[in-house]
């Protein structure tokens, strides 16, 4: 491999490629958001992946699924396969643990990761993934988008960083009991929501940027949490007002006392 390959990103730090290559990163959900994320992680130089998606390519995915072609929709190619093709095309030596199932059905590989990027479409799934990340000491980055309204549709989205020992998605005000209850009333069905490629690209790029910052700390921000709000009407990404107005930086919902495999306690 030419030493020139990463010369344009050497500002990330003198040993940054070494650190990036030793970091194990998971992407849960390889659809509209996850396909962008995978592509960028492979370009940046990540070598160790744990990836999950049980879905196949359909015609309705072609408006946003990076790497998918018409023939993939006809053949119902697994999204997992597309992700592997993208990774190996750029990183032939990469170690990819891919699973065509929900992460909960094969949770052990996820635990080895240092970073997990969740590209999920419902609150409950986000909550469960964040809990796992806290329990097994993993940085969690969440991305998601939605389109609200019919007469004058508005695109919204979020990129969230939740790190062990710091604010979680409940502390930040993103994951609320009301949102979880509303979703539960629909039996957890997120429904067929509008999805388009360009917000997914913005959100995925922001998530990869935040992941690189966690891995290398090239910005020297030292900030273990973030909630960035995407506004598709004015094409901006800004820090959430809700988060900015929070007075605390400690999390009452998770503690180190919850780390490790759950065990039964004698009463």
């Amino acid at each position, binding site marked *: 491999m030419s030493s020139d390959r990463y010369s344009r990103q050497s500002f990330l730090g003198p040993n940054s490629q070494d650190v990036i290559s030793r970091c194990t990163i998971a992407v849960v959900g390889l659809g509209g958001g996850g396909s962008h994320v995978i592509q960028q992680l492979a370009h940046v130089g990540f070598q160790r992946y744990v990836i999950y998606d049980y879905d196949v390519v359909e015609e309705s995915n072609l408006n946003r699924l990076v790497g998918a072609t018409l023939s993939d929709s006809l053949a119902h190619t697994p999204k997992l396969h597309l992700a592997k093709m993208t990774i190996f095309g750029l990183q032939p030596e990469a170690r990819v643990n891919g699973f065509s199932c929900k992460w909960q059905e094969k949770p052990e590989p996820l*635990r*080895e990761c*240092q*970073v997990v990027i969740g590209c999920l479409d419902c609150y409950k799934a986000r909550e469960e993934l964040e809990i796992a990340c806290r329990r097994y*000491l993993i*940085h969690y980055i969440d991305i998601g988008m939605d389109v609200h309204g019919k007469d004058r549709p508005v695109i919204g989205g979020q990129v969230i960083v939740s790190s062990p020992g710091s604010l979680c998605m409940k502390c930040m005000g993103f994951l609320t009991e009301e949102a979880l209850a509303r979703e539960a009333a629909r039996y957890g069905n997120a429904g067929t929501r509008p999805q388009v490629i360009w917000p997914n690209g913005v959100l995925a790029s922001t998530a990869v940027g935040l992941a690189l910052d*966690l891995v290398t700390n090239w910005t020297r921000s030292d900030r273990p949490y973030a909630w960035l709000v995407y506004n598709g009407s004015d094409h901006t990404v800004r820090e959430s007002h809700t988060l900015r107005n929070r007075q605390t930086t400690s999390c009452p919902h998770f503690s180190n*006392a919850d780390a*490790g*495999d759950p065990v039964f306690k004698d009463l």
Partner: protein
Amino acid sequence: MSIQFKLSGATFREIIIDLQRPHRFAAERVGFVSARLGSLTGNGKLILATRFHPIPDDNYIDDPDVGARINSEAIIGAMHAVYHGRSMREGIFHVHLHQHGGEPRPSKTDWREIPKMMPGFQAVGHEAAHGMILLSADHAAAWVWLPGKAEPTIADSVSVIGIPIRVFERRALP
């Protein structure tokens, strides 16, 4: 079987700050880290540090032959931590810092003294993993006594989940 050790950036920072503090007579400091077990693929084990226990200044014994010697109160404190963590399968790891860079290796004194503590820890917390963490200026390694094992296994990696992330991999250790 893969063994991986993880600790948060906050715990790592707390350890480093404490171990680098000068002591009145001891040439170096030591401490203990509580840690819990997680399961990985193929019977692999994940060891997750939960908190650091610094050794109080007056629990060091003045012994010019070694960098640091701790008294029975310090050991009893570690045993108490194991006892209170039994229901959560929380074990304890001796931790200290070597000043050089590179992958740290236990000194002869480390090998002579630290493993002696393990049978006691295992007697109190027989379902937990115990062991030793060695830090250097730019690396880390962990020796893990899994439940029921008389000999340690070297962890494949020690990860610090902070900012930046650090992943210290086992390289030349036998």
